[in-house]
């Protein structure tokens, strides 16, 4: 029970963090059909900017400013880079974001050096919110979760309840039709890209203080955000939320499960045979916690490619 409760808490908060990063990615994909490989780089830039700004403005203003700046960066990327390449096809857009990810990572190293920075949770926030079975639960984790949930609600309402949201959604489904109706679709694209980037930047600014801020941040997050987006359904915000939580929980629970396929075969009395085969069968689930998300993604793609919540196939 103790293990279950703690894992549940941990998994949910980690999932919520994943959502913060992937929300922007899924929006951008839904709208522009671009798999943005530079998205995790926005996350990293958010953390680095927040680190620099907090020295001047303090922690909270720095986080907001960092998110805004990353949003502007995103808009610049969309307007001056992606839009130019758009007519050459999706592959070019994708490779462009690849190149940008390279450039951003190297520039970060150029300006901030190769080592982790001393960007930390401010002391005022570094205390335990409550105790679960004798383990402190840091208030900052709750905060991260709270920000993520707030973000989700805000975007959801924005998309479903406001006029802007209607235009955005129509631009997602039928960009040409929306344009024909007189909406400025390029502006909408730029806006969505900016908001998506800003969300990633916000996630980076918040999480960078809790985890580590280092030049490999983007790489570490890497493909897992793509997994979230695909599992949830490309372009679906609710799906991204669901998938994030799912993956957060899986990676949290898998750690404690020391079972392997041998145990599974043991149920049918084939333990000895399985042990003699070894190899894949002997792998413990706990050592595979990084593998499971990819297996899940593969399964989803083969069984239900539109993802858990996606509408388009």
């Amino acid at each position, binding site marked *: 029970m*103790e*293990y279950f409760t*703690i*894992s549940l808490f*941990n*998994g949910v908060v*980690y999932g919520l*963090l994943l959502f913060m990063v992937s929300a922007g990615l899924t929006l951008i994909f839904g709208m522009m059909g671009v798999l943005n490989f530079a998205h995790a780089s926005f996350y990293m830039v958010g953390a680095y900017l927040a680190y620099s700004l907090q020295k001047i403005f303090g922690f909270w203003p720095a986080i907001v400013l960092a998110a805004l700046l990353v949003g502007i960066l995103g808009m610049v990327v969309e307007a001056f880079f992606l839009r130019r390449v758009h007519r050459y096809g999706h592959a070019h857009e994708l490779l462009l974001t690849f190149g940008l990810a390279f450039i951003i990572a190297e520039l970060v*190293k150029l300006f901030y050096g*190769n*080592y*982790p*920075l*001393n*960007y*930390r949770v401010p002391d005022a926030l*570094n205390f*335990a919110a409550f*105790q679960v079975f*004798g*383990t*402190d*639960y*840091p208030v*900052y*984790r709750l905060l991260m979760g709270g920000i993520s949930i707030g973000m989700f609600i805000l975007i959801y309402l924005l998309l479903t309840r406001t006029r802007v949201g209607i235009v955005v959604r129509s631009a997602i489904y039928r960009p040409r039709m929306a344009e024909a109706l007189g909406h400025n679709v390029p502006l909408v694209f730029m806006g969505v890209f900016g908001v998506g980037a800003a969300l990633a930047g916000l996630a980076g600014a918040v999480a960078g203080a*809790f*985890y*580590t*801020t*280092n*030049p*490999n941040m983007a*790489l*570490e*997050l890497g493909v897992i955000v793509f997994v979230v987006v695909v599992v949830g359904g490309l372009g679906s915000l609710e799906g991204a939320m669901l998938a994030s939580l799912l993956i*957060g929980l899986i*990676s*949290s*629970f898998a*750690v*404690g499960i020391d079972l392997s396929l041998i145990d599974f075969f043991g149920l049918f009395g084939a333990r000895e045979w399985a042990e003699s085969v070894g190899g894949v069968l002997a792998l413990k689930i*706990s*050592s595979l*916690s*990084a593998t499971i998300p990819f297996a899940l993604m593969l399964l989803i793609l083969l069984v239900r490619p539109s993802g858990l919540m996606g509408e388009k196939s």
Partner: protein
Amino acid sequence: MYPSKKLFACLLVLCGVFFATASFGASLKVAIVESLSGPQASTGLLYRTATQYGLDLVNEKGGWNGQPIELLEYDNQGGVTGASEKVKAAIADGAQIIVQGASSAVGGQVTEDVRKHNLRNPGKEVIYMNVGAEAMELTGAKAHFHQFRFSPNAEIRVKALIAAMKEADVLGSRVYAMNQNYSWGMDVEKAVVENADDGGYKVVEKTLHDTNKIQDFSPYVAKIKAADVDTVITGNWSNDLLLLMKAAQSAGLDVRFGTAFLDQPGNIANAGETALGHYVAHPFNMEAAGKAGEEFGKEYKAKTGHYPTYVEPQTVFAMNMLGEALKNVKAEGDSLKVNDLVVAMEKVKYKSPMGEMSMRSEDHQVLLPVAVSVVSKDAKFKVDGTDMGFKPVKVLSAEEAAAPVQEATNIKRPK
């Protein structure tokens, strides 16, 4: 575009090197094959700085054969493929010694490449100086006559950690082994288990987790919590170490960490107060090394801008040992006879600021003193611009720290 211009520059440099070397007699070239770019560059660049510094010291004392030793730099681009290619390039460019340290996987590749090259080109052997790849098998099953390891390994580090932590009475009786799931982590885990009797503790649980893939360590902290231990021994490095310690701290877990790589630059800055009270076993501690250590540190800083830390000291010591060995090797004809150098290296007794170092001839593993330190605000030298530093707890002499030769080791000596 770039290639043509760079190629031109490259050709010019090559010509320059050619003419520069053509006009003199026998000289020695040392090649460093490291990750100088990409995600692993931070460590690779430290090795480069330290190798350059160490060779400069040797050259100040006259180099070899009356000529300065030349350092060639190659970027292995972070992978084994690049390393293999660059080792070949280095040998083709006339390097007789290959220096490499970051990553045991790359180290395994380099040592194999060197071994194969030497098999195929008798009389034109090269040496691999391993200054930091710590996987046991490199001086075990993969050991050969032309490789040397100048860094400690898993067994040495764990043994030292446990001896010092036990003496300081902070080890406790319940220990958790938390390691990365690859050869280095497994070696550490094995060493923790093997040392249980000496340390008088019980290994309550051991975990191998994915390497550099985990963002959130709180599930692992939950496991540590559930195991109710006093000490966690971990070989984790870089982000895996930082995240683990931070997760433990934020969960309010009262355990002590015994680590191998806490002194990596940036770690203390990033971890902050979280790092206080945790232990590290490392080959050099400026405070522990006394006056000689301080002198070494200051000189190093004057040239490179920072105190020697992490993998740098062992690399500088390695170059000094090379310098000592070279004193006893005469030029024969036009070049250095590598096999003579290997024999000379086995006989070197070098006194580093930490104490005497030597090369064991059975497996070519260096025997070196190891310091165990605790992160503290009382430390004499602060690191990373914080008010904390590494306060020495105990220094083990080379003999005390040594681990036995592995059974798998079988170095075939040329006749």
